[in-house]
């Protein structure tokens, strides 16, 4: 039997006012707040720990555990910073969430801050998304007006301020320490760890950084409890997840489903491959994770199964590519992205991405030298595990992954350009039959 979809965060997105406090409250929104405020903060942390919720920002770190690292009674202010930078190629699940259901995030923030004893939360939203910024900023204002945020919230003695902060165009600011530097008004370059943000983060004070979706889960968890949450997903990957399925499927979009659903099922829900289309390769969680092929369609989409298959669940935002696509072009564009987004701090990523991109471009143009394939591979190895942050590792990922399945296509790049090998129009939505 197919794994059923589980619209939870997405359940009421078809309400015309789903993004307002009324729309949210109509379906039980802000019910979790008094429940949480009636608990001891540590009990809230314990409960989240028990759910096994793992961070939805890509790394899958257990959320409750992260919260428990925040030293208590240290006399320093604590901060919650919500990572709404969503810039990973392929990832497009946080922005719809902010647009359609921002109050889930806001309620989650209030509860999280109560748990970790933070009085100040920041929502760092990438700058290029005014539509999402407006919605979340409006939700914060509504929550202030309703007394959910502010001083002495609902008589609990708990005070909180929430600030929506716009970024300004830099993928690296999704990396949590770069984000903190950026939020402090600096260049978004990652920081040395240790100290970890939980100990010395924003303004050198204990700080929790969590993804939008992670925090948006919190009200639902508080409302419904540990067992409810754990009925979805697997032991190691409990819960449900927003999967944004993009590419050559008939109906790309956001699908909320339990972790452990398979890609075949997701493609099926997405209406199957577009007309005349055959799956060539897919990427489970953004461009930073190695690609898979049709043989992997029945693997459960969990952190553990994806790791076993040599890739990662990442942001769980699969991109699907059909036979019209040039792997060489796809990988080259991704590398151009990493080159463009490399922050410049460390040598391997700064120099490696631009060298690799330069070489890949020769293959895309059809005049690569076969021996350079080895050099590109060497470059990947010279970056992976040696760069300052995970962006470098990410940049070293697409090429070896692609070579594993499509070496011939790269070799063909020594004489045939990607556009000659693959009609560039064929892969477009205009050429594809229906995409509804």
């Amino acid at each position, binding site marked *: 039997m197919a794994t059923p979809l589980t619209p939870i965060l997405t359940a009421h997105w078809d309400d015309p006012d789903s993004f307002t406090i009324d729309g949210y409250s109509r379906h039980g929104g802000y019910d979790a707040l008094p429940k949480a405020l009636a608990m001891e903060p540590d009990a809230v942390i314990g409960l989240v720990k028990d759910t096994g919720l793992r961070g939805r920002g890509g790394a899958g770190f257990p959320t409750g555990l992260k919260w428990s690292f925040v030293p208590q009674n240290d006399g320093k202010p604590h901060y919650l910073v919500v990572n709404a930078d969503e810039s990973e190629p392929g990832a497009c699940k946080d922005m719809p969430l902010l647009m359609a259901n921002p109050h889930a995030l806001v309620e989650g923030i209030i509860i999280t801050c109560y748990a970790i004893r933070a009085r100040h939360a920041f929502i760092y939203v990438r700058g290029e998304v005014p539509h999402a910024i407006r919605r979340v900023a409006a939700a914060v204002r509504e929550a202030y007006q309703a007394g959910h945020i502010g001083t002495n919230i609902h008589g609990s003695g708990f005070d909180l301020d929430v600030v929506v902060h716009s970024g300004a165009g*830099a993928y690296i600011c999704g990396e949590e320490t770069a984000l903190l530097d950026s939020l402090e008004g600096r*260049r978004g370059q990652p920081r*040395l760890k240790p100290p970890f943000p939980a100990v010395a983060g924003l303004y050198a004070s204990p700080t929790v950084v969590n993804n939008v979706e992670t925090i948006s889960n919190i009200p639902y968890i508080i409302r419904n409890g540990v067992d409810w949450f754990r009925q979805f997903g697997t032991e190691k990957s409990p819960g449900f997840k927003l999967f944004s399925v993009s590419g050559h499927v008939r109906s790309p979009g956001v699908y909320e489903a339990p972790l452990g659903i398979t890609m075949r099922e997701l493609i099926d829900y997405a209406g199957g491959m577009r007309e005349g289309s055959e799956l060539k390769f897919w990427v489970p969680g953004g461009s930073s994770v190695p690609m898979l092929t049709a043989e992997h369609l029945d693997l459960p989409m969990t952190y553990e199964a994806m790791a076993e298959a040599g890739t990662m669940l990442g942001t769980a935002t699969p991109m699907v590519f059909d036979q019209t696509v040039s792997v060489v072009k796809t990988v080259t564009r991704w590398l151009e992205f990493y*080159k*463009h*987004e*490399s*922050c*410049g*701090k*460390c*040598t*391997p990523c*700064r*120099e*490696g*991405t*631009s*060298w690799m991109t*330069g*070489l890949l471009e020769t293959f895309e143009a059809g005049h690569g030298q076969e021996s350079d394939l080895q*050099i590109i591979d*060497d470059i990947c*190895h*010279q970056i992976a*595990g*040696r*760069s*300052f942050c995970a962006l470098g590792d990410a940049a070293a990922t697409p090429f070896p992954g692609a070579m594993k399945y499509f070496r011939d296509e790269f070799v063909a790049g020594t004489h045939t350009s990607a556009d000659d090998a693959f009609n560039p129009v064929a892969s477009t939505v205009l050429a594809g039959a229906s995409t509804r």
Partner: protein
Amino acid sequence: MTATIPVPADSSPPPVDGVSITVDGVPMTVPKGTMIIRAAEQIGVEVPRFCDHPLLDPVAACRMCLVEIEGQGKPQPACAVAASEGMSVKTQRTSEMAELAQRGVMEFLLINHPLDCPVCDKGGECPLQNQAMEHGRSESRFDLEKRHFDKPINLSAQILLDRERCVSCARCTRFSEQIAGDPLIELFERGSKQQVGIAEDRPFDSYFSGNTVQVCPVGALTSSQYRFRSRPFDLVSVPTVCEHCSSGCGLRTDVRRSTVLRRLAWDTPEVNEEWNCDKGRFAFAHAATPEFDTPLVRGDDGILHAATWPEALERVAEGLADARGRSAVLTGGRLTLEDSLAYSKFARAVLGTDDVDFRARPHSTEEADFLASVVAGSGLGVTYDQLENAPVVVLAGLDPEEESPIVFLRLRKAARKRQLPIASIAAWATPGLGKMFGTLLPTAPGAEGEALSALARGGDTLGSDGRRIAALLNEPGAVILVGERLATCTGALSAAAALAHTTGARLAWIPRRAGERGAVEAGLLPGLLPGGRSLADAQSRAEVAAAWGVSVDDLPTKVGREVDAIVEAARAGAYNALVVAGVDPFDTRRPDDVIAALEAVPFLVSIEVRPSAVTEFADVVLPVSTITQRAGTFVDWEGRTRVFGQVFRTSLALTDARVLAMIADELDRPVGRQDVAGMRKEAAALAPSGSGRREVPSVAASSVSASSGQAVVSTWHHLLDEGTLQRGDDDLAATARTAVARVSAATARAAGLTDFVTLSTDAGSLDLPVVVTDMPDGVVWLPTNSHNSNVRRVLGVDHGAIVSLASGGGA
């Protein structure tokens, strides 16, 4: 190598927790928190590095220093991982993982690096070049187009940047931000376009900019002064000590044949660490060219003619023959300890006069008493280390960034690293105070003494800041630093000494010039003999006479005159002769009077390195060696002896001490050969014995106030200004701060000032741009000797004087 200064036993540092680790299989114990890269150095293993610098916060950006740590899947940056108990580290010598990682990084660093080593200033002393030779591939695998930038750009008049050579290690930007507190250069752009830069029209005018050239691990930063001038392998490096201020920096002077090509900071952990200021680094034109070849003797035609030494000495002997007891000696503040001792002896034993004073600057009797009682013979007092670890530092009449830049760096370091509270008794919060995160105790000129006394009474009248600082002053190790200009604030030095006495705080005097502390030790003040001894004290006189090998009866007994009194006496015809060495009349409070005195005195001997305002009136000019031609000792503000050798060993030019010995011979009052070794022996013999200390002054504080249309002058020197020793270094001068006049908003309003102010006295007037500043009313601040702002020369006044204010018309 001893001089007069005894070194008190240093309190040993507190024990630190050790951790046991192995590096390449060698077991060792290092203090907790030690970075692996430092630990490896201790067993002689150099892990290659570019961004790492022991005095900068680690960034681990270049990734050159990757090593293997057992149990970790990925290589780790040795510069940023602290040793922890049981850690097993394998460097490139024993780990393939580390070796491969380093080789990979090296290859990346070279792909965009121009291989222009043969024309690069850094060629031959370049870590990148050395690494490439040791670990690099012989042939580059990179055959795409290299990153290209337009060739060197000026970050300032003095500092140039060649962006193609930059490896983005951020040492220069981190230095500027962390050490100097001048974030004027920064990383711009990102990714492979990342580059060092400045904001538009905002040059890198930091007093410490030259250090960035020194810390740059490649040839990306160069100085206009040294650029293309030499190759490192053509240079001979000599350790020297800076002759500019009393910070006492250890320097490295690089010479080729007979030319100084550059100066760098020498790694001197107890003093300047690895830094120096741009004045010390770049202002050495003065030392490069001895400007007199021979002695000069004024002929009957009234003109100075070249003469032989015997001719000149004979003439001097004639002129000084009847000057015993009717002469005076003025020495300026730039002599070495050896030369100061020679003048001290020459004045007393040869000329029989106690009219001797080194203070070619505003001074007072209170100051002389203070120096004689508190400073002279006190040995190594407050040290840099103690500053760094003090519970509080109070600055009175001292702006360290301008007047003793290494003190500034050390204070900033302590303020940044351990929140050292620093308070300044001054008219306004200078940029330097801001960079030390310091607190201003706003004080009008002349009121410094009152402020110090207020602190002694618990600081109540100085508000909450005052109370906090006053309380801290009672903690062990608290420090009070007083600057040169307190000499002009009646009662201030007395109050400082009293404050130290009541609180138990330690007190140090920080003069501006490198030779001043040595001059105090040598007794170049009326009534003061070497080693803090008093002329009035019989035992002191006996000790000194013995050390000098003269009869006690040869020494004067009457306490002599100070500079201002000497000048007055000279004008009144009280002297037959004056001996003047290294004095610029324009440094004194009343330059006109000094010149009149020089003119009036029947016989004037000028002992000098180069022509000066004194030359014009001298009867005989005796040339002496420049700082590079001689060995010697400076005593820095701490009381630390800073011994240096001769840069140009073959120079035949004579030191002041040798010249004085020859004059003494000619006068038949021989004092010995007075070579450097001899003078050092004499210095040791004159070490303080504790006898005959003068009383600490207790002059009551009195303050000045201005009536309407007037203001009290607050003034001190900019580090880079029109000082004699900075002449000829134009690019350096171009980085100096512009002179402005600062007044409070109320003062500006009252005097109707808008953009410019005209300051005037009966001697002259200055026109300066006005900057409204948070400061006491009725006060105007301006730099002492900057372009368009020569307070002493033009206005004939100094700190604490009254001037008239009027709206100015613009310069």
